[in-house]
């Protein structure tokens, strides 16, 4: 709750000015929310499309893996998988847009040629090779998706925060300031009426002498 201001003309002017600046702030916050919502929906479309693509890629990769497991045997695929291990030098950086920080991922291409996978190409069947290539594509798609999904989450959080601020201003701050303005105005009017009454009494008394 706001502190009560003493009923003076100066305070009335200050409070009126404060209501004015709060309303301007509200307009700014509403425009910010509008821009964020627009961005949110365009990002949402990208998320849905990328997810759909990832699911299809995952289906394809699992098919390739099933074929490799069925035709080459688990032991062969597992031994190929041991040889393919590598470190992926990716970097998670922060990007700042309208004061909202988004994580952004930077990474080199993760799709390798068969001879760069670490195993002896003649010893591994084409099926295992295809499965490895398909999973590398899945990994590439995953790395692409992360930034977009994190962006969607962050924009959502920012919309929530902005809505909370707008609600606080419209539901609490502005009504409270208006009540204070009304109270001061009533007090000043009351003081004015008392003054007029006092002057009349004074005039009457003065006329009687």
């Amino acid at each position, binding site marked *: 709750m706001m502190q009560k201001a003493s009923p003076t003309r100066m305070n009335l002017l200050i409070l009126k000015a404060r209501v004015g600046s709060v309303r301007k702030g509200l307009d700014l916050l509403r425009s910010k929310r509008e821009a964020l919502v627009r961005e949110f929906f365009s990002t*949402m479309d990208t998320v849905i499309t990328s997810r759909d693509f990832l699911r299809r890629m995952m289906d394809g990769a699992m098919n390739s*893996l099933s074929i490799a497991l069925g035709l080459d045997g688990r032991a062969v695929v597992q031994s190929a998988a041991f040889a393919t291990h590598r470190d992926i030098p990716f970097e998670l950086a922060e990007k700042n847009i309208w004061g909202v920080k988004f994580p952004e991922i930077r990474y080199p291409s993760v799709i390798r040629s068969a001879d760069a*996978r670490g195993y002896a190409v003649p010893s591994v069947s084409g099926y295992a090779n295809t499965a490895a290539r398909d999973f590398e594509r899945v990994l590439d798609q995953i790395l692409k998706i992360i930034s977009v999904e994190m962006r969607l989450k962050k924009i959502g959080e920012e919309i929530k925060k902005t809505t909370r601020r707008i609600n606080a201003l419209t539901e609490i701050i502005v009504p409270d300031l208006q009540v204070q303005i009304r109270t001061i105005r009533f007090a000043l009017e009351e003081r004015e009426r008392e003054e007029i009454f006092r002057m009349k009494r004074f005039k009457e008394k003065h006329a009687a002498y």
Partner: protein
Amino acid sequence: MDRIVAVLDEDTALGFRLSGVEARKADTVEELQERIGQLFNEKDVRLVIVDEEMVRRLPEKLERRIEHSTAPLFLPIPTVKMWRGAIRPEEYAARLIRRAIGYQIKIRR
């Protein structure tokens, strides 16, 4: 160096191993819980790939922790176990939106 780890069922984990990523096996929710607990203590792990259907079955508190975690970042993906009953991308996005803005919305495409 920052690492990527996949925590998935045996077959999917093998697939990710083929792509060169470190993959750990988690066939049950309990196993996944245990692996996630370990991953939170491994400071060089920055990205964790998990099964989106298994994440949904985790205790609410842990699910929220995963969603809000930035170190490591968790990315739920669709896997083979739910081949037929896979979550549609629209559903996944709708859930993500409900968590982000607090409203349930219906996406029509």
